[in-house]
């Protein structure tokens, strides 16, 4: 196989992947070069872009004298500054690291006795974290720590946000709406629909901020690349390679970018199989549902419930991979490839903040638009026909009741859960917002409550905020098992409402179903766009079937064993 003139090997794919941040800037410069038809000697365009990011003096000089060169240099400078801010280091050093990372990965794969001439710290860490036997346990431990730290540290802030939203914020909204003489239904829509629904999800923002922060930390230090390396052998059993693991890891944040991340894989078979497995990775939107139920029903062992959900997702991904490999995706061995192992880096605050914000702001936007819309629609459905007394007799209640028969064998055959699951198709956190509308928004307040005065409430907000900071800091030593026992978190209204409704085994079955059923419309759209609508349809049917069977097994199995 020979490469063509001025193109790159690997079917036109670049040899070295310089990482998301740098590749984005390369693409920008590349597009500019192509669009403006800038010609600088015979230099290949991608190479030219890379050299500009490296601030190669000779190339800069040549570009300066080319037509359109000034504009290109300006764009390059912007890119370099942006990257320097993120990495806190010169870009050429990062590029060199990446190139060496590619080579280190390659050498590790092709040399039987790796050279021991240069054993720097990075290599020493690698011998432990990429160890044949220790690698996977270390990875599982890292993931456990990630979710433990995230949920523990975020909990006080969530409590605080919940108090602010259900307390002062609701009061002010109500007072404001009464002040401008709004009709009763509008007050009800705002309080029981929008604030209960959107607010119920907004409470989880601290949780996701911490989750995305820790994922960014693992990513920016270079550990995620090692995790992919460790999983390489396991992935080969699924007929995939370690590179497929990266989209799956992204899936722990959000499934939609995970599906788009499969584009880095070479064959369509690999891309499709990987994309079909991504939704099994429990995304950030599912975490609020787990946390809500775990806190309501399993106060003493929340961690176990949480980590079990994540592990169950991974286990079913593996199972699905094996089944698909011997059925739909038979044969066709995957092409060998090189896993980049860039040296470990100390991440910069700036880079972490950027990555954390990118993901969190997407969640907040989603809450602002889709969850808002869903909350309004759900509120109307709960109140139709107009003025209905009992929510059970509303359109929502009737629809939920009809569907609920399907879920009788799985332990949550009530109209509330079924309705919440249907609305959860928009996005899984909507399950929480809908339940919040039903169980909290629908409850009539007893009598006229005496609201505290506004200054008093403002004082409470700050006091609560300070308490949250203190509590979350206090939790850090408690992460070491046995050092401290933290007091149980305060119970929210929604948690209290769920307690009498769900038995423990029904709650677990419900969470299993939420983990596994159709991820959300955005995921289906991504699958459809990348692989065609028939695959998206197949995926939807498959996930729902798996979810029902798994929930059934959990509920009935626990019943037979006399649990819950």
């Amino acid at each position, binding site marked *: *196989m*020979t*490469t*063509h*003139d*001025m*193109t*790159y*090997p*690997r079917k036109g794919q*670049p*040899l*070295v992947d310089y990482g998301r941040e740098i590749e984005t800037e390369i693409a920008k410069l590349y597009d500019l070069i192509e669009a403006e038809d800038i010609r600088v*000697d*015979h*230099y*290949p365009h*991608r*190479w030219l872009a*890379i050299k500009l990011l*490296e601030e*190669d*003096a*000779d*190339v800069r000089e040549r570009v300066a004298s080319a037509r359109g060169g000034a504009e290109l240099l300006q764009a390059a400078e912007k890119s370099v500054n942006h990257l320097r801010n993120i990495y806190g280091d010169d870009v*050429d050093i990062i590029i060199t690291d990446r*190139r*060496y990372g*590619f*080579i*280190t990965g*390659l*050498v590790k*794969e*092709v*040399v*039987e*006795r790796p*050279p021991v*001439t*240069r054993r720097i710290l990075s290599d020493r860490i690698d011998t432990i974290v990429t160890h044949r036997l220790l690698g996977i346990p270390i990875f599982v431990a890292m993931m456990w720590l990630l979710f433990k730290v995230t949920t523990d540290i975020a909990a006080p802030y969530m409590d605080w946000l919940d108090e602010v939203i259900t307390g002062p914020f609701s009061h002010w909204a109500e007072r404001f709406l009464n002040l401008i003489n709004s009709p009763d239904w509008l007050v009800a829509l705002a309080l029981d629909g929008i604030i209960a629904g959107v607010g119920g999800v907004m409470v989880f923002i601290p949780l996701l901020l911490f989750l995305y922060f820790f994922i960014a930390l693992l990513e920016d230090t270079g550990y995620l690349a090692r995790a992919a390396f460790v999983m390489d052998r396991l992935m080969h059993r699924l007929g995939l390679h370690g590179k497929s693991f990266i989209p799956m890891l992204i899936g722990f944040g959000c499934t939609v970018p995970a599906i788009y991340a499969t584009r880095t894989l070479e064959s369509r078979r690999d891309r499709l199989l990987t994309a079909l497995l991504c939704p099994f990775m429990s995304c950030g939107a599912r975490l609020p549902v787990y946390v809500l139920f775990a806190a309501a029903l399993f106060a003493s062992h929340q961690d176990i419930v949480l980590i079990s959900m994540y592990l169950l997702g991974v286990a079913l991904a593996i199972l699905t991979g094996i089944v698909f490999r011997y059925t739909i995706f038979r044969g066709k061995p995957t*092409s*060998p*490839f*090189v896993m980049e192992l860039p040296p470990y880096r100390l991440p910069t605050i700036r880079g972490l903040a950027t990555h954390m914000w990118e993901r969190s702001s997407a969640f907040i936007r989603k809450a602002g638009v889709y969850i808002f819309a869903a909350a309004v629609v759900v509120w109307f459905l709960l109140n139709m026909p107009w003025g209905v007394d009992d929510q059970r007799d509303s359109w929502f209640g009737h629809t939920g009741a009809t569907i609920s028969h399907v879920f009788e064998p799985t332990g949550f055959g009530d109209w509330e859960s079924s309705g919440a699951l249907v609305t959860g198709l928009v996005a899984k956190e909507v399950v929480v917002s809908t339940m919040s509308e039903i169980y909290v928004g629908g409850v009539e307040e007893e009598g006229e409550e005496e609201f505290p005065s506004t200054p008093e409430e403002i004082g409470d907000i700050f006091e609560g905020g300070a308490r949250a900071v203190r509590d979350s800091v206090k939790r850090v030593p408690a992460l070491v098992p046995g050092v401290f026992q933290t007091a149980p978190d305060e119970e929210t209204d929604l948690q209290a409402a769920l307690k009498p409704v769900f038995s423990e085994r029904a709650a677990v079955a419900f969470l299993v179903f939420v983990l596994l059923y159709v991820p959300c419309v955005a995921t289906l759209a991504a699958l459809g766009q990348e692989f065609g609508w028939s695959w998206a349809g197949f995926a939807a049917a498959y996930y729902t079937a798996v979810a029902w069977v798994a929930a059934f097994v959990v509920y009935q199995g626990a019943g037979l064993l006399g649990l819950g």
Partner: protein
Amino acid sequence: MAEGFTIALAGNPNSGKSTIFNSLTGGRQHVGNWPGKTVEKKEGIWRHDGRDIRVVDLPGTYSLAAYSLEEVIARDYIVHERPQVVVSVVDAANLERNLYLAVQILELGADLVIALNMSDTAESRGYKIDIAKLSEGLGGIPVVPTVASRGLGIEELKEKIIQAARSQPRRTAEV
């Protein structure tokens, strides 16, 4: 294939590049300077099937950054003179450092053949390198194991260079 083509030899200093240059060209060598530069330029002729193939020995470098004159000469030669094939001599004893240069030549878009040279040190360390995997990892370029000091693998290297040159689309004249 245009008659009489040019190949360039690239590699780290002390990678065995000179030895391979000598075994390709025999005695037909010419030593001069790179135009306008005080860096030595070695050229030679390799007779193959009654045809003369020009072999240019690029300065020994570790990288293709613009940090040294040698590096600029090497990369400008590859880009502007466009030898049909670049042979990268890679010392198996220092695989990472040597591949660092090879990867950069590949990024420049050159047609590369790797001469994976087992120096005495590499041999004494008993490395086992999976040639096929290395080739595929680098995008399927030919990798030929050689022991230049004992003349091993040179014939296969020559074969691969000719093959690489032949399978190229004909180059159009560039301005």
